[in-house]
């Protein structure tokens, strides 16, 4: 019984992590950017969806759409206002750009966090789920929303996979994540690829955020942990490797669920962080890293 519960709960949360981390990994693979405002973008999407439902009284579908749209817009702002100016800056030495982008996105994330806390308080917000009710799976009472979450996550990941593997533009993006210079030589403008991945990332962040809001609920305090979990997953999977991130998402998701059920929910995040430290120490390139 407990076994099945852990299996099902873990699957849902892992799928969510997978979705969140995919975009993060994609951006790093293509442009070498680690976006430390990741968690803030997700929370922004949740709060938008929540506010749409609460203040504007729109239905759950419309609310979700608004949340996704906000995630998308926030992602584009992050790229155009923060990441791109730094990448193109002449004042900063090349070797220092990485640390500047890290610092700037971290700052930006905290700005968003403060802004959200200011307008919508620090209280946890749960978005009204699209699917309600409870179903029984192998004897476990499971909220239908949990199943919905897992299904949507895999649907979106599936669509992304098709997009990347079955369309020419998508293929170019994938190729750019392996070798940016290679695609330039084939006449693909990297600047356009960057915009494309940040757009894709924005949608993924929006979807993942809204689902998270329906599933667990978030507060402005979730910004740091959400960034850290995406970061951990991506590092565990090997920076830049999307497939690695997917696998790592399940490792982390299940580790957290196991800890929560078997030890205490309070210790939820600790084993995953420990694992991360150990993996980084033993194999700094992650489990499936290329770089």
């Amino acid at each position, binding site marked *: 019984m407990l076994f099945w519960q852990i299996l099902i709960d873990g699957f849902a949360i892992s799928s969510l992590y997978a979705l969140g981390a995919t975009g993060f990994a994609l951006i790093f693979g293509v442009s070498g950017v*680690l976006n430390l405002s990741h968690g803030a973008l997700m929370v922004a999407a949740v709060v938008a969806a929540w506010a749409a439902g609460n203040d504007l009284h729109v239905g759950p579908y419309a609310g979700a759409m608004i949340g996704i749209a906000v995630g998308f817009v926030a992602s584009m702002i992050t790229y155009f206002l*923060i990441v791109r*100016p*730094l990448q193109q*800056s002449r*004042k*900063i030495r090349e070797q*220092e750009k*990485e*640390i*500047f982008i*890290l*610092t*700037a996105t*971290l*700052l*930006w994330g*905290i*700005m968003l*966090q*403060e*802004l959200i*806390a*200011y307008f919508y308080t620090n209280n946890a917000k749960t978005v009204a789920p699209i699917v309600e009710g409870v179903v029984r799976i192998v004897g476990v009472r499971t909220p239908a929303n949990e199943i919905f979450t897992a299904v949507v996550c895999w649907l979106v990941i599936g669509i992304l996979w098709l997009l990347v593997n079955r369309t020419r533009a998508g293929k170019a993006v994938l190729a750019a994540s392996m070798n940016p210079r290679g695609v330039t030589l084939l006449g693909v403008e990297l600047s356009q690829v960057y915009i494309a991945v940040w757009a894709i990332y924005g949608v993924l962040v929006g979807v993942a955020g809204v689902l998270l809001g329906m599933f667990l609920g978030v507060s402005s305090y979730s910004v*740091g*942990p959400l960034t*850290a979990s995406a*970061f*951990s997953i991506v*590092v565990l999977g090997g*920076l830049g490797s999307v497939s690695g991130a997917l696998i790592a998402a399940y490792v982390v998701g299940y580790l957290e669920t196991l800890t929560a059920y078997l030890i*205490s929910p*309070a*210790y939820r*995040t*600790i084993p995953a*962080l*420990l694992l*991360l*430290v150990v993996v*980084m*120490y033993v194999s*700094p390139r992650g489990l499936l890293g290329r770089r």
Partner: protein
Amino acid sequence: MGSLSTTRVLLIGLIAVALAAFLPLGVSGYILGLLTIAFYFGVFAMAWDLLFGFAGEVNFGPTFLIGTGAYTAGILDNLYQPPIWLCVAAGALAAVAGGVVLALPALRVRGPYFGLTTLVAVLMLQNFVVVDASLTGGEIGLTVPDVITISDAKNYQIALWFMAISGAILFALSRSPVGLILQASGQDAVQAGALGFNVTKHKLTAFVISAFFSGLAGALLVFYLGSASVGTFIDITVGVQIIIAVVIGGRRTILGAVLGSIFIIAMSEALRPVGDLANFIVFAMALVVVLFFPNGFFGLLTRSKETS
């Protein structure tokens, strides 16, 4: 910065500190309180600058060291009430141990990976504090039974001279042969090794020194505030404030970090009328500095000499 001689900078600093020492005669206790906090913050920021600016280590977890020092001192006082100086010393030592722990991965993994381990260290400490509430006070915070003094003026003088001495030591260190070797190791560890420098030893030292001052300042701050909480000592936001203090003040200048800290505290205060939005505005200003003036205040003063 190089154009100003070490002694001249120290002299200017000494004059500034001496003038600041007379401030309690003319300003309210409230402002003294703010400056007290700004001075402790200044030490945090200088200690961070030593690690980042000189040893080249991207430490996103200054609050890991500060929190370790602060909580060790606070918990010790709470449990056994030894003399305060003993608590402070224990806090500094615990932070040094924390610094060594933090340094271990730094000697193996590079760049963003190390940045992540430091972030993880902060989250782990935060988790520990929240979970182990019986010892640490958890999310509510830890109240310490003792304070060094309740006099605003005395607290102000303690913080001022503590900052002045720490600053003088850290600054002299950064300008000393050791600081030069540290910079060389941070910039190009391979070459530093080929010149006969034991890079590991020097970087470890940088971590230990940075941790010592962070922990010491953290412990002292606990006995000024009379309490410790995740929000004031450990939260990533606090760490980011320290980092932006350095970035605004100018990296690799040590003393710029103090200016940055005072600026941040002053801005937060000046923006008090806008309420909770104050933090947002301070962060936004920091972002503008990062985007448009990557060398910070001190950098602006010396920029013309740096570029070619």
